[in-house]
């Protein structure tokens, strides 16, 4: 038999960096997890921080209640950072940190921990995400207004360019934009516009000279998304690479092609992963991955994959291992890495590329016409586009125009054995983690020299006020035992707190409405007539959770169904929600919680409502609520719990109207 292609030995390309995004409970528990992952063949670390750490609060701050150690590791001070990497030589690690508003601080802690391990900062390799624009638009862990946020972002760039030659100071993210509903065009144009805003800012700085600027450009890397339409996604990455190269050349005059290279990591799309028939998500993840590995010219440098139980809750170690194995099988068992680019020369691909590139340029011109990224963030113009795109996406699914297996077609299913276990198929963080972290924090504060910490903080305040780079002052803070909340407190004091526009005011999905909307409107009108006042719904997001998609879409649909909706955006305390409900005379309160903190926050909202005599107002809760927690919420008095399976928004509106009718003794 003739020699087959497969039997000939071929030289393989090196695979991408294989990572798993992880961290939870405490520094010590996460350290054990990282060591396990490294032993299983993972080749880099990707640290998930908890929300208090990401937003600059200590574990004992009121807003941190219920959030400590939940969705990531809590890092409150140098002791936590050292515990996180205990026994892991930082000299050899490539560490990716998903950290943004507090990136200067977490990098300072990392540098301090490494220096105490005996590794100079210049020897450190890794990435800080440090992309603030997408925090305002999609991710929600910002602290300061856009202008100072960009300034601190640039501080990290200037510092690492000088002191840490192997560090990627910024991972420009398009990933989160897609998770907030962006189409490929919006994803690419918004991300590139954000990158340009940062580079423009850095170029104007005194501590970055013109000669090193091309190197700054070369340090920028990207973090992108890849969804189910994997051909379109692959085209997107090829286009992004081409556009980036051109922008670097034309706008910044970067002549060295190496410094214009589009380097990117990926997490594949999670927004489309379903709660229904969750085992199917494994196929989705595999297909999504094709978009970022198939084309050699646009292949990812690093890949992280979600797990089959994405829409149920946090993955357990085994779930993460299952996803890790997918990457390893793709890299090592297939012949993917043996060939040159498979798509160069394809006319179909070339045509798709040309169309997308033209659309992206039009979109970037629109952003410029809105006054540039900072203005378009402040005015809410960019956010509105994302909310509208998400409204459209969900509308297509509701109307059945976009088929999703297990959701709006092929919904019959045998019970899944994957969720049959006692843990419901997810990892749950022990509530004791928060108490223990608070106790460790108290002990840490007691053990340090209060005078040294105070002096370091005042040095930080002076640097921030003077407009100096805050990095060296932050490293000194780290070494004197300053805490994350103290660092964040100084930044808030100097630069002010910020609430980003919600983008919901001008969006409507009524144009493409389904028949169900008419029913919802009737129900709302009937109940409003009975109440004597138009049904008023307060949509609240308690805690630090930044997942806003659900709340936004509920707000838009409730308005389209005829309700008056009060929605103030993310990150409110239970007390703020209760006082707003009182002032507004809300007929119903809808809480949206996806960060796993519902068992702490929903009771806190009930207590705050009771304190104001509002116990009669019906409360509904939506988000990632594990099946096992439904009972506890209902026992508390929650009128109805909604999860991602409840994709029929009109039906939700009818149910809210019904809950209000019952609470007010009206016919439904």
């Amino acid at each position: 038999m003739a020699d087959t292609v497969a039997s000939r030995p071929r030289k393989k390309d090196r695979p991408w960096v294989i990572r798993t995004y992880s961290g939870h409970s405490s520094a010590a528990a996460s350290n054990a997890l990282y060591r396990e992952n490294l032993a299983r063949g993972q080749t880099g670390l990707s640290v998930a921080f908890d929300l208090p750490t990401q937003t600059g609060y200590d574990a004992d701050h009121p807003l941190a209640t219920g959030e400590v150690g939940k969705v990531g590791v809590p890092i409150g001070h140098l002791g936590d950072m050292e515990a996180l990497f205990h026994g892991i030589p930082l000299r050899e690690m490539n560490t990716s940190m998903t950290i943004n508003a507090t990136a200067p601080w977490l990098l300072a802690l990392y540098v301090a921990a490494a220096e105490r391990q005996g590794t100079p900062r210049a020897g450190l390799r890794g990435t800080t995400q440090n992309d603030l624009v997408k925090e305002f638009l999609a991710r929600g862990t910002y602290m300061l207004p856009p202008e100072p946020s960009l300034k601190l972002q640039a501080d990290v760039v200037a510092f690492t360019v000088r002191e840490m030659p192997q560090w990627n100071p910024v991972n420009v993210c398009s990933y989160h934009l897609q998770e907030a509903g962006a189409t490929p065009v919006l994803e690419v144009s918004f991300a590139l516009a954000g990158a340009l805003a940062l580079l423009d800012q850095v170029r104007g700085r005194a501590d970055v000279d013109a000669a090193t600027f091309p190197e700054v450009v070369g340090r920028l890397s990207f973090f992108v998304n890849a969804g189910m339409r994997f051909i379109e996604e692959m085209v997107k990455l090829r286009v992004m690479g081409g556009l980036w190269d051109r922008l670097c050349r034309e706008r910044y005059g970067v002549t060295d092609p190496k410094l214009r290279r589009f380097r990117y990591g990926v997490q594949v799309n999670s927004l489309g992963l379903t709660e229904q028939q969750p085992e199917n998500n494994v196929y989705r993840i595999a297909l999504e991955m094709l978009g970022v590995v198939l084309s050699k010219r646009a292949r990812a440098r690093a890949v992280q994959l979600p797990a089959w139980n994405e829409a149920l809750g946090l993955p357990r170690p085994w779930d993460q291992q299952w996803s890790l194995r997918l990457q390893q099988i793709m890299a090592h068992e297939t012949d993917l890495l043996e060939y040159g680019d498979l798509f160069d020369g394809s006319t179909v691909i070339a045509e798709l590329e040309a169309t997308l590139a033209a659309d992206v340029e039009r979109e970037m011109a629109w952003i410029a016409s809105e006054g540039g990224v900072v203005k378009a963030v402040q005015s809410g113009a960019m956010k509105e586009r994302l909310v509208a795109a998400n409204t459209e996406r969900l509308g297509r699914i509701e109307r059945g125009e976009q088929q999703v297996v297990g959701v709006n077609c092929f919904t019959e299913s045998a019970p899944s054995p994957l969720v049959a276990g006692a843990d419901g198929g997810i990892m749950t963080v022990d509530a004791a983690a928060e108490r223990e972290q608070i106790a460790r924090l108290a002990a840490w504060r007691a053990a340090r020299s209060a005078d040294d910490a105070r002096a370091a903080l005042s040095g930080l305040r002076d640097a921030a006020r003077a407009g100096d780079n805050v990095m060296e002052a932050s490293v000194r803070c780290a070494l004197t035992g300053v805490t994350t909340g103290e660092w964040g407190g100084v930044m808030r004091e100097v630069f002010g707190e910020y609430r980003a526009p919600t983008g919901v005011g001008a969006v409507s999905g009524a144009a493409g409405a389904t028949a169900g909307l008419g029913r919802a409107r009737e129900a709302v009108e009937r109940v409003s007539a009975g109440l004597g006042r138009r049904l008023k719904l307060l949509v609240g997001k308690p805690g630090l959770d930044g997942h806003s998609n659900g709340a936004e879409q509920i707000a838009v649909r409730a308005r389209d169904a005829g309700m008056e909706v009060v929605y103030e955006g993310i990150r409110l305390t239970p007390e703020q929600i209760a006082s707003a409900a009182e002032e507004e005379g809300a007929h119903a309160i809808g809480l949206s919680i996806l960060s796993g903190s519902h068992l702490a926050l929903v009771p806190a909202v009930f207590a705050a409502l009771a304190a104001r005599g509002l116990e009669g107002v019906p409360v509904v809760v939506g988000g990632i609520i594990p099946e096992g927690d439904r009972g506890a919420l209902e026992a508390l008095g929650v009128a109805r719990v909604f999860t991602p399976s409840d994709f029929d928004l009109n039906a939700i509106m009818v149910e809210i109207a019904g809950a209000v009718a019952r609470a007010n003794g009206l016919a439904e």
Partner: protein
Amino acid sequence: MTTEVERVCAGERRAVAAALNLIESTRGSDRAAAEALVDAVAGRARPGGQVVGLTGPPGVGKSTLGGRVVGEWRRRGVTVGVIAVDPSSRASGGAVLGDRSRIAKPAGDDGVFIRSMAARDRLGGLAPGTVEAILVMRAAFDRVLVETVGVGQSERSRRSW
């Protein structure tokens, strides 16, 4: 009724909220009570009280300025009532009321009371009941701030819903 009026005039939040609900009510049986309440509070403005209106097209900075003004008033220890009027959808009658988020209210500060009102079927200008709501708030708080898009103005990028 009189105790209700006294509670409103004492700035009791629950009474103020109930009074505003009553004013907004279209139920026939509530109208007489609403009128009586308004008549009773109309003459009870706080001594030295002020009502300040902010009007102008969307995006000019009314809420931002209003938020700063409220902050300054609070620093001086005076209580504040805010009425924020947003336009309604003509198709559904619904509205998204989001302006209150622009007014930074210190945590746990019950000295600021913010009420959003939908402009219902009127385009721009005041919502039905705004004037009555001002009278209630003027009796309950030292300062009243009213934010509305001006008559004839339309919201930025407003679609035809």
